[in-house]
């Protein structure tokens, strides 16, 4: 099933090129979501099903929603209504939708074929990842918690100062 990988790679590259060349932030975000979905499919084809699920849930789900929130927060001018009318014209959705449909077709092919073939890389199951994560890499988990706490405090601090200034 190597051709699935090449199609997904082409979709990922196309979407990434559109991300860095697009002028509207929301459209660039749409293309970036498609690029992340293509990468998730590639992760699955490389035998990392758990990483693929995390890529869809955390990257395309959580991080991109943060981006969309900020882009929407930043556009609070008198021109916003006109701008959003332009953004919501139906033609914009064609590009990302076509790329996403290609990925959906690949997923259907994989489901119809009953999973990965024998020629593909050996799948690494979540059990092995977990044993490795909480065995030799347990210090990295502690470091990740050390990273997340300053991230939480920093985001809270940066969001809070503005509320104080306004009030």
């Amino acid at each position, binding site marked *: 099933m190597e051709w699935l990988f090449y199609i997904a790679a082409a979709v990922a*590259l196309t979407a990434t090129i559109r991300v860095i060349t697009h002028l509207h932030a929301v459209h660039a975000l749409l293309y970036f979501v498609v690029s992340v979905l293509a990468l998730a499919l590639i992760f699955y084809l490389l035998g990392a099903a758990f990483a693929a699920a995390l890529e869809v849930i955390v990257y395309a789900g959580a991080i991109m929603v943060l981006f969309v929130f*900020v882009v929407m927060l930043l556009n609070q001018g008198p021109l916003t209504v006109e701008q959003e009318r332009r953004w919501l014209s139906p033609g914009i959705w064609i590009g990302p939708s076509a790329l996403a449909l290609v990925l959906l077709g690949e997923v259907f092919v994989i489901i119809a074929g009953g999973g990965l073939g024998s020629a593909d890389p050996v799948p690494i199951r979540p059990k092995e990842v977990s044993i490795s994560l909480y065995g030799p890499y347990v210090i990295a988990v502690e470091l990740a918690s050390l990273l997340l706490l300053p991230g939480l405090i920093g985001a809270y601090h940066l969001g809070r100062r503005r509320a104080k200034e306004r009030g």
Partner: protein
Amino acid sequence: MVTVHALILAVAMFSLGLVGLLVRRNVIYMLLSIEIMLNSASLAFIAAGARWGQADGQVMYLMILTLAAAEVSVALGIVLQLSYRFRTLDADAFSEMRG
């Protein structure tokens, strides 16, 4: 063979992210380019892990995911602050430090 081509794809996506970071002057796009580069790094880790059949690549992927989540939450807070103070998102306008 697929893993080698996945590494080539990771290199191509990293270069695209780097070009985007250098070319674009809008802070949102610069953040998106950084996300692209983080994504391609995680693809390189997963491909290497699949090549050797070890779980270490996916462990490093989880670390990159954590890093990206923490980085995005702080960076987007900074972007909001910049937009409220300078009324623009142009990276060249934030030059008060004369760096």
